[in-house]
């Protein structure tokens, strides 16, 4: 078995995965995606790997690399399909809706003017401009809870939209507007799905409405109930499957909805509270894919050519 790990920054997670592979005596080549040049006419270099574990910190670099590897039939964890869906909140929401997985209400607008009216409608704007209920404006691509805006009134909406229109990159020209879910007990839940199993769950609590551990949210173990497992696995399957972290919100009435799905999941803060050896579970899965015991689906129709047969499914 020969494994490659694509990275652009070795976080604790990449180190833990690398050490787990080393511990098992699996040959693993660490490949810095920033130094890679994919020769699209000769991909023989990549035929030597039974599986590529994609752990790039940059979504654009990851998506491009996975698209190429997928096209040439190189088996990857996660797949291009998972990256394509999970890397975009719009794509994620579409797949969750398509597969009947509960998620917060979302509307999409493509101009600041349309976004302003959309937020007014979703927020129930009063005559004085204040909203009956907040709405959340999110960048379609982004992570770690960055650039999220909880909007309480029209004045704030106008200011944020003007800033986005003036300062934002093209990613900010599509406005992803989500209902604000008032979190039960001020916490959200993150589950970790590997293949068909929810291997662990944590709650994240913060005094701030953004509860990401990257933003200081405190993690505590949560029991994986049958309901949590069912919705988490359903969300993972809807979003391409593999090794995914599912962010869930619990409404005041107890309904659980899927907020986001992450395909390069970070788990360093979740090993100790859950007691689950998450890197071992991820490596089990990756080696299962590499050996052919676990089937994954391709997005592209693989091309025939120099790497035909490598990673054939």
């Amino acid at each position, binding site marked *: 078995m020969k494994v490659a790990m694509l990275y652009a*920054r070795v976080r604790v997670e990449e180190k833990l995965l690398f050490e787990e592979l080393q511990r098992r005596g699996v040959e693993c080549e660490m490949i810095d995606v920033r130094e890679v040049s994919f020769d699209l006419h000769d991909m023989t270099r990549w035929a030597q790997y039974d599986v590529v574990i994609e752990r790039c910190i940059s979504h654009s670099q990851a998506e491009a690399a996975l698209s190429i590897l997928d096209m040439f039939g190189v088996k990857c964890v996660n797949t291009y399909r998972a990256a394509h869906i999970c890397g975009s909140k719009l794509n994620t929401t579409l797949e969750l809706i398509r597969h009947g997985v509960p998620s917060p209400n979302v509307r999409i607008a493509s101009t600041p003017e349309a976004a302003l009216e959309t937020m007014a409608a979703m927020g129930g704007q009063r005559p004085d401009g204040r909203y009956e209920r907040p709405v959340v404006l999110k960048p379609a*691509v982004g992570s770690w809870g960055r650039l999220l805006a909880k909007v309480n009134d029209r004045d704030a909406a106008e200011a944020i939209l003007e800033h986005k229109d003036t300062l934002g*990159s093209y990613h900010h020209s599509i406005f992803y507007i989500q209902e604000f879910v008032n979190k039960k007990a001020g916490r959200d839940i993150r589950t970790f799905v590997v293949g068909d199993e929810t291997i662990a769950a944590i709650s994240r609590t913060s005094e701030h409405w953004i509860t990401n551990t990257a933003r200081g949210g405190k993690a505590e173990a949560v029991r994986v109930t049958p309901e949590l497992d069912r919705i988490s696995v359903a969300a993972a399957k809807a979003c391409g499957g593999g090794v995914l972290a599912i962010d869930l919100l619990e409404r005041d009435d107890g309904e659980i909805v899927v907020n986001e799905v992450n395909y390069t999941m970070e788990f360093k803060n979740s090993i100790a509270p859950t007691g689950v050896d998450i890197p071992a579970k991820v490596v089990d899965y990756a080696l299962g894919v590499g050996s052919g015991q676990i089937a994954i689906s391709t997005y592209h129709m693989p091309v025939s050519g120099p790497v035909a047969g490598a990673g054939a499914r």
Partner: protein
Amino acid sequence: MATVECTECGAEIEAADNVINGEILPCPSCGAEMEVTSTKPLKVELAPEVREDWGE
């Protein structure tokens, strides 16, 4: 335990024996994030700033 000089402030940064390329070492003096570019000999560069598409 190997050590290397911070490229920003010159302080000494320690690295564990199992350090690998691409790993980030925070400078204990100035807080700058240093990226390991070589392990033998140990070399570091100032790590890239967080970009908009970084994350999970």
